[in-house]
Structure formats: structure tokens, C-alpha cells
């Protein structure tokens, strides 16, 4: 789980919380606004109703000039509705007919809310500068304004109180809502992500070499399905893995048998020829031992034994790859020595030699004779590939504490099909008696023993490069392979 930068659970919680906060706040504000407005509308409606009712009632009394009854009505309003702060009636020429203020009447109020014509009512917010009270003043015409108008002032503080009460409820609601939302987010996130975490753990623990533990999830949803699929996949992977392993071991065995086959048949072939020669000679000597050809036959027999000895020695070289004692070796010297051994052959086949050996190439720990043999082998192969002359380029340089030696020729090249065979013992394309097919395998083993590597690059008809690299001495690693 260390690789997961942001946990799924955190993402879940964050996004749900954000959504809850965003829409929660919108909700709250909307609800608050609606309640506030409806409270205000309600109050306004009530005020308008009171004023209109009064306006209708006073018509008769006003027409009859019964101001006593008008005053009674106006006074009653204040008693009936405690939200009504004041009520007064003014005539069409803006004279106050009756009012229910205590004793005196604030004259400025008359002009504060004037009715425009043909309006059923008019509402204005009026602020008392001295007492700092807010009133909702409602003006309603009496008999279409012909008899004046009724004015009712509602104390806004009562509705403010109601709004404040509603506000506290809302704030509580918000908190509960948010807390519930966030708690829900946690629970939700846990429910969703814990099975996913189980699956992730399952992946992390999956080891094909051991029997896999099954992931057990019972959520009855896609995640359970995913877990089932995972178990199935793990099972399949494991069986495939086992099959593959078996196949591999089998393959290795077959390969081993195959190379032993090549080795044996090659060996048999190489030894069979001189052996039959030997047998031939011995038969002839046996028939006429006193013949003077006997000496000639003995020479032939020696030759055949030499050949056998050569093969056996080569085999021994191949098998005894583990080197004894390594000493510092100058690569330049080794290469020069190799060239001196094959110089006459190069001349004979009129091969142009280009040597590019860097001076700073350094030395390495190794066996100079074996390395010599490697390069002799490579050069001989190149010569064999260029019987009618060509170019032989030998490059040596140091790259990153690696000594690289390239042996390049412009010979006939190696067919692609043979490229992975040339390092097999006894693989040769050369006619019998000319090549044993041990040169490259021996060289390969020697290079390996020095901790290096050898590669081939070749194109038929163009040429071949044998690339050798060996660890340099200065790299500090001494390649001492004992045993």
C-alpha cells in the first residue's frame, strides 16, 4: 500500500465532504431565504389584511362623521394584534383623523408612505431614528382613497425575533447536517474501500512460488466479483507458472542432452578417423612387419596419435576452464603475441591488417596464454573466412573500466541460422581435418573465466565482428575464480 499516493478512502471522504459542504450551504441559504421571505410576506399579508379590514369598516363611520366609533376601531386594532405598533387614519387631504399613538402624533409619518393611485396597498419600511425601531408601514386606501387612507405599522422586531429563532434552528441543522454528512462519508468510504484494500493487499502478497491465499469478500457487488476474478486469476497464474517451470527444466535437460550429443558425435568423429588410420597401419605392419614401409606406417600412426592427442588436449582445455592463478596481463602485449603467432598465415593469404589499440587501455588480471589462445582462435577464424584476402581490423579500447577488443573481418560471414551454434563444441562448417569446432567454445570458456563476455555480429557476404570485453584491472575487481 506504500505505492498509493492518495488513498481511495481519502478521496472518497474529501469528495463527499466537499459535496455535502457545497450543497449543504446552498440548501441552508436557500431555506433561510425562503423562510425569511415567507415570514415577511406573512407579516405583510396580515398587516394588509388588518389595514384593509379597518379601511372597509371605517367607511360607514367616516361617512356618518362618527369619529368616536372610528377611534374605537383604531384602538381595538392595537389590542387585537400585538405586532401592530401603531394605526392611524388620514383624510384625503392628509389630515390625521384618528391615531393610536400615546398622546402625540409624529407628523413626519404622514408623508412617509403615500399611496399611488389605484394601488390596493403600499408597504414601506420605516425606521424610527430615536428609538431605533423598524416598522413595516402599510397604507390602504379608504373607498378608493376618496375618504383617505388607513395606515398600519407593524413592529419589525417581532419578526426579527422569529427569524433569529429560526436562525438558531438552522445553524443547529447545518451542524448536524454537516456532521452527519461527514460521518456518512467516513462510513461510506470505509465500506467501499476496505474490500478494495483487501484486493490490493492480495496483489501485494501474490507470490507464484507459494500457494496463494484467497481473498474473501462478501459485499455482493462488483467488488466481490472483482475479488472472485482475482482469486481465479491467481489460481490460473500459478498453474501456468508451474507448467512453465516444468517445461523449462525439461527444456534445459533436452538442451543438455543435445549438446552432449553434439559433443559425443563430434568426439567420435574426430577420434574415429585417426583410430581407423591407426588400425589400418597396424594391419599392414602385421601382414608384412619386416617391410621397409613399416617405418612409413609408424610415422602415419604417430601422426594419427598426434591428432588424437590434439583432440583430447582440446577437450581437456575446454573442460578445464577454471583457471589457476591470474596475474596482471597487458592486453596490448597479448594481442601483439597472438599476431606474431599467425603472422605468416596473414601474409600467405595477403590479408591487410589494421590495428587500433589505444594506449590507455590498461591491464587486466588473467592468464596471458589463454587470452593469447583466444585471440589466435579469433584471428584464425577470420583468416579461414578470407581465403582470398581481405581486411582484418583489430580495435581495443577502454570503456567504463571495460576493456573492449573487436576483431573484425571482411570474410564470408556466418549464416543467421548458425549464429547461436558457433559457440557449441564441435560445431564447424569446415571440412573434415581442417576444423574441429572447438576454437570458439574454448575461447568462450576462457573469456567467461576472466569475467568477460564475447558476442558475435555477422552478415553473410560482408563480414564478421567478434566483440570481446574483459573487466579491466583498475576496476578493482580481481577476477579470481578458484576451484
Amino acid at each position, binding site marked *: 500500500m506504500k505505492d498509493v499516493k492518495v488513498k481511495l478512502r481519502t478521496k472518497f471522504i474529501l469528495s463527499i465532504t466537499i459535496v455535502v459542504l457545497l450543497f449543504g450551504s446552498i440548501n441552508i441559504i436557500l431555506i433561510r*431565504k425562503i423562510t425569511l421571505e415567507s415570514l415577511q410576506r406573512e407579516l405583510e399579508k396580515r398587516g394588509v389584511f388588518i389595514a384593509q379590514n379597518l379601511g372597509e369598516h371605517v367607511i360607514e363611520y367616516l*361617512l356618518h362623521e362618527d369619529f368616536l366609533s372610528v377611534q374605537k376601531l383604531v384602538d381595538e386594532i392595537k389590542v387585537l394584534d400585538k405586532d401592530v405598533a401603531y394605526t392611524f387614519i388620514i383624510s384625503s387631504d392628509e389630515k*390625521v383623523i384618528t391615531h393610536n399613538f400615546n398622546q402625540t402624533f409624529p407628523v413626519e409619518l404622514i408623508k412617509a408612505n403615500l399611496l399611488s393611485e389605484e394601488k390596493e396597498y403600499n408597504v414601506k419600511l420605516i425606521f424610527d431614528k430615536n428609538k431605533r425601531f423598524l416598522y413595516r408601514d402599510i397604507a390602504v386606501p379608504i373607498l378608493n382613497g376618496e375618504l383617505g387612507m388607513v395606515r398600519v405599522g407593524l413592529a419589525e422586531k417581532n419578526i426579527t425575533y422569529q427569524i433569529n429563532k429560526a436562525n438558531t434552528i438552522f445553524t443547529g441543522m447545518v451542524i448536524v447536517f454537516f456532521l452527519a454528512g461527514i460521518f456518512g462519508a467516513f462510513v461510506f468510504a470505509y465500506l467501499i474501500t476496505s474490500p478494495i484494500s483487501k484486493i490490493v493487499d492480495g496483489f501485494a502478497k501474490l507470490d507464484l512460488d507459494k500457494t496463494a491465499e484467497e481473498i474473501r469478500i462478501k459485499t455482493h457487488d462488483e467488488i466481490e466479483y472483482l475479488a472472485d476474478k482475482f482469486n481465479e486469476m491467481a489460481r490460473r497464474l500459478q498453474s501456468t507458472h508451474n507448467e512453465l517451470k516444468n517445461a523449462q527444466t525439461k527444456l534445459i535437460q533436452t538442451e543438455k542432452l543435445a549438446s552432449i550429443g553434439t559433443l559425443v558425435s563430434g568426439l567420435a568423429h574426430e577420434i574415429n578417423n585417426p583410430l581407423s588410420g591407426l588400425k589400418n597401419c597396424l594391419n599392414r605392419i602385421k601382414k608384412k612387419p619386416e617391410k621397409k614401409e613399416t617405418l612409413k606406417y609408424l610415422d602415419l600412426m604417430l601422426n594419427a596419435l598426434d591428432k588424437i592427442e590434439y583432440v583430447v588436449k582440446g577437450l581437456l582445455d575446454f573442460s578445464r576452464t577454471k583457471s589457476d592463478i591470474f596475474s596482471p596481463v597487458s592486453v596490448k602485449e597479448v594481442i601483439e603475441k597472438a599476431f606474431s603467432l599467425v603472422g605468416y598465415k596473414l601474409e600467405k593469404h595477403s590479408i591487410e591488417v589494421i590495428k587500433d589499440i589505444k594506449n590507455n587501455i590498461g591491464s587486466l588480471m588473467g592468464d596471458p596464454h589463454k587470452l593469447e589462445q583466444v585471440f589466435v582462435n579469433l584471428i584464425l577464424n577470420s583468416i579461414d573466412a578470407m581465403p582470398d584476402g581481405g581486411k582484418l581490423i583489430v580495435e581495443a579500447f577502454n570503456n567504463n573500466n571495460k576493456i573492449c577488443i573487436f576483431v573484425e573481418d571482411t570474410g564470408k560471414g556466418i549464416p543467421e541460422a548458425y549464429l547461436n551454434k558457433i559457440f557449441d563444441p564441435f560445431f564447424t562448417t569446415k571440412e573434415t581435418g581442417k576444423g574441429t569446432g572447438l576454437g570458439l567454445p574454448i575461447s568462450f570458456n576462457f573469456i567467461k573465466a576472466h569475467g568477460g563476455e564475447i558476442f558475435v555480429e555477422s552478415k553473410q557476404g560482408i563480414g564478421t565482428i567478434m566483440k570481446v570485453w574483459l573487466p579491466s584491472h583498475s576496476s578493482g575487481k580481481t577476477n579470481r575464480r578458484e576451484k
Partner: protein
Amino acid sequence: MLKSKKIFILSLILLHFFLLYNCNNQEKEEILEVDFSETETDVNNVSKKVQFSINMAVSAMTSPKETYIYYQQLLNYISRKINTPVSMKQRKTYQEVNNLLETGESNFAFICSGAYIRTKKNSNIELLAVPIVKNEPYYYSYIITHKDSSIKKFDDFYKRTFAFTDLLSNTGRLYPLYLISKLKQNPENYFSKIIYTHAHDFSIHVVARKIVDGASVDSLVFEYIKKNNPDKILDVKIIKISPPFGIPPIVVNRYIDSKTKNKLRKTLFTMHRDEEGKKILKNLMFDKFIEAHDYLYNTVRDMDNFVKKAELKQKYQ
């Protein structure tokens, strides 16, 4: 994938702010500052109204509001024609109107025929004009009951409930009293209960609502309502129509100067000749105004005398 997620979250937040902005952007109501300390003790100055040279008094034929609307146009027309502001006073009872005329508080009035005959012989009240309705200066009293009522004739109202309009009303009280007197019955205990409605339209209303079994109403008001609010009379039926009476006149008193009086008379008599006047008359359902004569009200006076005599008889029997 990541980009679209970011865009989504961004748009969510933008949407949020947009909504918030909209919510808070509600139009703030304008608040007016008023100095409540600037006060005045004596504000009831309505009573000290400008003295109008013509002050018309009306007794409520219909409810005060209806009456006001009914006469307002006529009043405006008159005041424009004679170039003098005319004010209007309404009173609940006919007696109050008569008092206004007698004291001089009003000098011009529409009064009920019943109220007119009650003015003292030597009073300062003088007939000015009388409207013509359907080519005659007469009106009637309609005796009405609920349309579902079993009452067929006036006698059936015996020991039933009945609505009178006003003490001085001709059509609304005097006529049914006369009918009872003719039956040689005592009006005081003829009905099981009497209520005073002080408006003919209200009398119709209480009958329609079965609050009383019957009522006696002014034909002019009844026809006016029939024309303008036919729904209101759907539930009532007329079971008896009185003989014709002189239509309630327009009167003046001696407090009015003769010049104004003549102007008033002229205006009223020529009203039907100009378009505007014609329209107002039509609304009031009057043809025109003509010279009024006291004899028009003799039938009412006779009826009144008959009832009085009958009452006296009852008293001393």
C-alpha cells in the same frame, strides 16, 4: 480523465458561488428614516373642515358606502356646474338628516318621502326638485320575502319576523304599518320581531339570507340593485307592490342663498340635456329632474295620518 475531474470540481464550486451570489443578491428593501419625535398633539383637525357653501345631506337609502358612490358623481357634477364646492354628509337615520337641515349644518338634501312629510309645516325646508323615473315622479314599496318562503300575501307575515328600514322611511316602514293598520291590527305586536336595517339593500340582504321572513323596500333601490347586482335579489321575491308615492325629493333650507338655490335648480333641471348629465342620470336610473310639488306627497301624508289615528285608537281602546 484527471482534467475532466478538475473541470467538474471547478464547475461545481463555480455553481456554488453563483447560487450563493444569487441568494444574497436579493433586492434590499428601501428603508425610510423618520423622526418620530417630531410630534403634534392636536391632529384631530378634521372637524374644523373648510366651510362649504353647499352642504348636502343624504340619508342612507342603501349602505353608507353604496350611497356615497351613488351620489358622488352627481355631487361632483353639480359642484362643477355651479362652480361651488359641494360637500356631503351622511347620517344613519333619517331623523339625523332632518336635524342637519333644521340646524343649518346642511342646506341641501335628498330626503325620504316619509322624512319629508314629517318636517314641520312651518319649517324652513323647501322642495327643490324631484326625479322622474320611467316617466313618472312616483315610486313604490315592494313587500319581499325569500323565494322559497311559503308566504304569499302580506297577511302571512303575521307573527313572523320583519325588517324595517328607518323610523321615518316611507316605503321601508310606513307602508307596511299602514297595511297592518288597515287590518285593524296593532303594528307593535303584529310581527314576532322587527329589526331596523337603516338601508334598503341591507333589508334585501337579510331576507335573502332568511334572517327575517320579510321586508318592505324602496322600489328605486330594488330596481337599482336588480340592474347592477342581479345576484343579490335572486333569492327574494316580491309579493306585494304598493300604490305609487311621490319619489323622495331634493330639498333645500333657508340657509342657502337664493342665487345658489336658483343655480342648483337650473343645473338639476337641465342635467338631462348634456351628455355628462345624461350619463349620471342614467346611472342613477333617473330620467331627469323636474319641479317638485308638495301634493305629490299627499298619499304618503294620508297614509301617515291613517296609521297615527289607528295607533291612537289602539292606545285608547
